[in-house]
């Protein structure tokens, strides 16, 4: 163990920044920060202190080293470093619980530092409901905690002269079992020094039965500061000398820059610079309102756009484009089975491009200097953003530091990365720190939308109404994506002259080598047999799942339950149609075709909790005018097994005006051990309501040149005034299972559950999302009498 070694320069830098408690450690790239990092001044000080120690500002912590994850200060404060960030879902709190639990310290003594490329281990993107998996199983932060506890027990054993087996770790100290007077605190053992050891993959985790902090409905540590506006968002970052930038995006998709008349804003107060690069234009000014006004007045000439495919006929258009094909599974006998089937049922489902639509437009601050760059961003992946920002600026990645700073809820790749590129380019050009917050229109017209889908389904039924073959063929549209190393995967970088990831058609699809449950391309009811392994959640052995990816006209990227939601809408609506065709109860019919025990459990649990009325749909006796009510069901093994959910929805359909109101949702969810019941409930509730908004209201629209949904009038969402359903949530308790995702489970089932309930209420099947009043009315009008 190395003693605390802080150079006089570093001490001075820290004093200058006004830190009250601090311990910086040299060696293994680790440092201890015994204070809560909440201010920008603190971060600048940190970097100054690092530089003063001779450590490179952009040192990358080695995730194999315990010191990269945890440090114990001389005051007993435990500082944890995580590569998974707070996106509004309570991850800060539950990660603090995890550290407190594994190290046996009170939560009050835990500090958490998240996603700073210089000081936290690279854990990739915080997305895809992967954080619970990544940090709460035998890896990541959990295993670091377990390793540290074992190390402390060993050190305590040496200090106390008692075998480790007779020691217990409790309340930040090691003591002799049965003799609490013989104890030594963690601070006395390692305080202010590094562990200097590797993560021990065999260090035992605490079993959920031993938990005292984990598993509890611990209140979120950040809500008091959020609700009193003390919390710092990236939108509040203020750096000395900072200027404000406002991009001028093209008026049409594909429009190219013809010229900028800078004289049009000559003399406007505060204007510093007009920045142009390729098809990119931005204005930098001293104050935000000055930049906004100048950008609005700046005369910019553009070419016409390249034209967009017809919005109303887009789903047909998708089928005719060159595609990159993927065969998830093919038993080879589907055509023959369909031919011999007693009946074949077919349907087509359509799901639109949708937005992340963050309530705060995206914001970032960049400070590009000659030899180093610092970026404050609410990106889901600061580590990749470091690389793409370096590419954008033409500098080495190790000169770039990206500091995650919380933003508006993103639900996937919103404009956080795009705004970073805006700020970085403008800062580079003016040589000063620049803050950019996008306009509402630039956020919504140019973000990376969730993918549009059109899915053809057909099944063959035997004479008893059992499914004997399932055939899925889907088309989805995408372009760009998470930046990774490519700034051109988002609009700002593209306009600056960087290319998105190339679209590479591939036909025919190569034969699958293993069953991939990702994206729920395959329905839960197929066996998923590839080679001699069966990876599906169901029983249907004759199966073919073929997907075609085409190039979209807009930028796209993961949006909460990406592709899973679109596919599950198609699968679970279709399953309901089949059940109705054979006059079976939709829950019983599902159970008949499922094999995954965890999916079966949530289905049974949701049905029981909702007091599901067992009968075929539609509901008998409903009138054809006025308000009709009905129930619908859906379930999914999300991503083939990263979270399980089943849902029943009770809806009212106003048959006169087409309005759908969801009255009640019952949700049964399984995400492995319940790390924080308050947190998972908040996520299941929020995601379910998000799903209602996406099912009933949300859709990107465009004309022949540009996106026409660019604010909250043209892109509708449910408001705080909307009637929300009563929600019952059942959490499956799986203490012996691995932790899986939770934040994307409930939303995946919503569209189908609602659509099925509309059918139950009215006998009308809606196969296109969103179920707007106009679509519902049109479908009702076409209803056979």
């Amino acid at each position, binding site marked *: 163990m190395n003693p605390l070694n802080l150079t006089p320069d570093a001490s001075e830098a820290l004093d200058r920044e006004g830190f009250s408690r601090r311990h910086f450690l040299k060696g293994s790239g680790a440092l201890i920060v015994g204070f809560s990092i909440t201010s920008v001044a603190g971060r600048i000080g940190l970097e100054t202190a690092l530089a003063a120690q001779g450590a490179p500002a952009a040192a990358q912590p080695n995730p194999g080293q315990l010191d990269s994850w945890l440090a114990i200060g001389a005051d007993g404060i435990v500082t944890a470093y995580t590569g998974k960030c707070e*996106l*509004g*879902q*309570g991850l800060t709190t539950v990660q603090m619980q995890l550290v407190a639990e594994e190290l046996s310290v009170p939560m009050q003594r835990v500090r958490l530092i998240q996603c700073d490329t210089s000081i936290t281990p690279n854990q990739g993107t915080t997305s895809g409901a992967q954080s619970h998996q990544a940090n709460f199983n035998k890896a990541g932060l959990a295993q670091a905690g377990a390793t540290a506890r074992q190390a402390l027990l060993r050190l305590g054993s040496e200090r106390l002269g008692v075998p480790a087996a007779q020691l217990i770790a409790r309340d930040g100290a090691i003591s002799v079992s049965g003799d609490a007077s013989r104890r030594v605190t963690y601070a006395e053992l390692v305080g202010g020094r590094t562990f200097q050891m590797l993560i021990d993959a065999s260090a035992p985790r605490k079993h959920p039965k031993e938990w005292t902090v984990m598993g509890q409905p611990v*209140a*979120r540590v*950040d*809500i*008091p*500061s*959020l*609700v*009193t*506006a*003390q*919390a*710092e*968002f990236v*939108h*509040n970052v*203020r750096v000395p000398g900072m200027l404000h930038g406002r991009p001028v995006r093209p008026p049409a998709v594909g429009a190219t820059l013809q010229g900028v008349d800078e004289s049009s804003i000559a003399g406007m*107060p505060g204007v510093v610079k007009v920045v142009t690069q390729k098809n990119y234009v931005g204005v930098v000014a001293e*104050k*935000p*309102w000055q930049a906004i006004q100048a950008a609005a007045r700046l005369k910019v000439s553009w070419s016409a756009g390249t034209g967009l495919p017809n919005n109303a006929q887009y789903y047909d258009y998708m089928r005719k484009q060159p595609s990159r094909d993927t065969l998830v599974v093919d038993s080879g006998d589907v055509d023959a089975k369909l031919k011999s089937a007693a009946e074949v049922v077919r349907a087509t489902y359509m799901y639109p491009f949708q937005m992340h*639509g*963050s*309530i*705060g*437009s995206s914001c970032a601050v960049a400070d590009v200097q000659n030899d180093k760059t610092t970026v404050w961003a609410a990106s889901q992946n600061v580590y990749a953003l470091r690389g793409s920002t370096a590419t954008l600026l033409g500098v080495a990645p190790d000169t770039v530091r990206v500091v995650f700073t*919380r*933003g*508006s*809820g993103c*639900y996937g790749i919103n404009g956080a990365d795009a705004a970073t590129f805006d700020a970085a380019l403008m800062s580079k050009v003016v040589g000063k720190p620049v803050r950019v*917050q996008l*306009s*509402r229109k630039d956020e919504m017209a140019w973000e990376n939308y969730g993918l549009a889908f059109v899915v053809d389904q057909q099944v063959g039924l035997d004479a008893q109404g059992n499914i004997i073959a399932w055939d899925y063929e889907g088309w989805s549209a995408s372009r760009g994506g998470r930046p990774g190393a490519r700034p051109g995967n988002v609009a700002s970088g593209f306009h600056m002259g960087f290319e998105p990831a190339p679209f590479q058609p591939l036909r025919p699809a190569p034969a699958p080598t293993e069953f991939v449950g990702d994206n729920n391309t395959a329905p839960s009811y197929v066996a998923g047999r590839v080679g001699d392994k069966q990876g599906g959640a169901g029983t249907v052995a004759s199966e073919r799942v073929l997907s075609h990816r085409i190039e979209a006209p807009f930028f796209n990227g993961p949006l909460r339950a990406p592709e899973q939601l679109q596919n599950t809408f198609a699968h679970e609506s279709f399953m309901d149609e089949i059940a109705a065709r054979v006059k079976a109860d939709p829950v019983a019919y599902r159970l008949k075709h499922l094999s995954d025990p965890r999916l079966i459990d949530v289905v049974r649990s949701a049905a029981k909790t909702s007091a599901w009325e067992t009968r075929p749909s539609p509901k008998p006796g409903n009138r054809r005018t006025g308000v009709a009510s009905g129930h619908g069901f859906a379930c999914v093994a999300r991503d083939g097994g990263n979270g399980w959910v089943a849902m029943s929805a009770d809806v009212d359909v106003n048959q006169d005006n087409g309005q759908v109101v969801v009255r009640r949702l019952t949700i049964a969810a399984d995400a492995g051990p319940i790390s924080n019941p*308050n947190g998972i409930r*908040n996520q299941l*509730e*929020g*995601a*379910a*309501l*998000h799903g*209602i*908004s996406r099912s009933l209201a949300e859709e990107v629209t465009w004309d022949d040149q540009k996106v026409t949904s660019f*604010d*909250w*009038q043209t892109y509708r*969402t*449910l*408001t*705080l*005034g*909307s*009637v*929300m359903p009563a*929600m019952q949530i059942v959490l499956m308790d799986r203490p012996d299972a691995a932790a899986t995702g939770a934040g994307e489970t409930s939303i995946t089932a919503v569209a189908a559950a609602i659509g099925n309930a509309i059918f139950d209420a009215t006998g009308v099947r809606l196969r296109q999302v969103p179920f707007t009043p106009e679509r519902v009315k049109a479908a009702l009008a076409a209803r056979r009498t």
Partner: protein
Amino acid sequence: MPMISLNVNGRRHTLDLDPQTPLLYVLSDDLELKGPKFGCGMAQCGSCTVIADGKAIRSCSTPVGTVANAQITTLEGLGTPEKPHPIQQAFIEEQAAQCGFCLSGVVLTAKAYLDQNPKANETQIRQAMSGVLCRCFTHTRMVRAIMKYAQGRNA
């Protein structure tokens, strides 16, 4: 430019400003307040809400010159983490936040409405909240927190 005097959270500020500047930029940039936030700039979402002379207003579309004599309260002006206002306390108790970006709109719109309509029922409160957005969809908990505050202030 004229000098404008603003009363914000009980403090008086005198600033040299274009009176057409939207109040939001003055609060968030000149005064560096964190409560009011830019969400849309068109009074469509509520994130920039402040209370001016008892009424919830959208600071993104309110020229600063029009509120020069008003008493303005922002979210941080209501209470602190140590001593939250009862409506903030209700949000803490109900754990009614996810990302928290929208809270100025949610909390201040509800507070201003209930101050003027203390006997409002849930339907009326929902009506009053119909121009406020939360994209994390914390709706159920937020309405529960607002109802809790409404009932508490009438108790």
